[in-house]
């Protein structure tokens, strides 16, 4: 193996990093010195991105809608029995109790969940929550409603900060966004995954499983 194929010694690498003494060999030291000079020449020759770029960036920023703080969907309910292994029975019971209470609540109020159309067989009820205290209107748009910004509208909660909506979805994979005040399309920051579409728009991903297991 030639010296060139072996590469530099550890001393030479440390010296190139600016730590340690120069390597013993004159040829190796000359090589490292040339490397350091090349890095310096490259660094000095790099054009800088000047202050005028800041002006351009801020002009673009001012034209954007104000960023809105949101929190995403919290949990889901499945309006049917789920068979579980004994070890998981306790956790499942909690889920079913929660599911029952929400369903009961919905029935007592006489509300049909958004998109349910009177009760879709095999659908899973998914509850979305958004924390947007300064919003006037919040809607849910996604691949499940042809990205309509008006068909699924959130209801403002009693504390005025929290918006909720429950949607019946068949098992499948969906992309969605929150639409705040009709103009700001915002991905769910708590979603399990975000997908960038062909236009560079980032959408949140939601997966509804056949047993009511939903992942975002």
């Amino acid at each position: 193996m030639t010296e060139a194929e072996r590469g530099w010694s550890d001393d030479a690498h440390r010296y190139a990093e600016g730590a340690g003494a120069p390597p013993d060999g004159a040829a190796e030291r000359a090589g490292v010195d040339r490397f350091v000079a090349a890095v310096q020449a490259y660094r000095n020759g790099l054009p800088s991105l000047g202050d005028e770029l800041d002006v351009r960036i801020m002009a673009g920023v001012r034209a954007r809608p104000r960023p809105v703080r949101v929190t995403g969907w919290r949990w889901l309910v499945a309006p049917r029995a789920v068979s579980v292994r004994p070890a998981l029975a306790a956790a499942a019971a909690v889920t079913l109790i929660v599911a029952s209470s929400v369903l009961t609540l919905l029935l007592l109020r006489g509300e049909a969940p958004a998109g349910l159309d009177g009760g879709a067989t095999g659908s899973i009820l998914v509850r979305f929550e958004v924390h947007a205290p300064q919003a006037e209107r919040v809607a849910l748009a996604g691949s499940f409603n042809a990205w309509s910004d008006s068909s699924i509208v959130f209801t403002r909660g009693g504390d005025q900060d929290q918006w909720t909506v429950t949607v019946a979805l068949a098992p499948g994979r969906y992309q969605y966004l929150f639409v705040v005040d009709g103009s700001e399309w915002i991905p769910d920051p708590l979603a399990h995954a975000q997908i960038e579409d062909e236009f560079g728009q980032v959408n949140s991903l939601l997966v509804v499983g056949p047993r009511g297991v939903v992942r975002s």
Partner: protein
Amino acid sequence: MAGGLSDGRDDAVIVQRVLRGDVEAFGVLVHRYREAFGRYAVASCGDADVAADAMQEAWIRAYDALATCEHPDRFGAWFFRILRNQCHNHRSRSRTHASLDDVTVPAPTRTDARVEWGELRGLMERALQRLPTEQREAFVLRHVDGRPYAEMAALLGEREDRLRMRVHRAREAVRRELEGHYD
């Protein structure tokens, strides 16, 4: 050496101000991190105009997604990841029409220091273009920006030992490029 990450508490205060509606406060972050990461962007994109576009796009995305920045005290690292993606995207697009042949390196000379300086710069530029992306960005952060490995690990979300290995390999590749030209 490039500017390091700033005091996180200061960044967090600015982020809160922007989220409360003070858009102009965002300019403080823009100035701070455009300066800190400008050299990385130019070296990473291989072209100042491409880097400026990547930087601008990164800031717009950062502003739009500011409410999703879970740790505003680590804004710099959060923004760096957005910038890094934009640099990769813009570099890929611009490379469609560029090739290594675009980098011209003068013939070896020992007679004129200015010519040798330009020669070294051209060699380094060509060597960087030939590096795999991960090695190039590690090399740039370490040798061109002069950042400590701990800071690089925070920016790239990687372990320090892995970054040391990437820089080592990149340095060997640059060494071969230089030796191949002069020897």
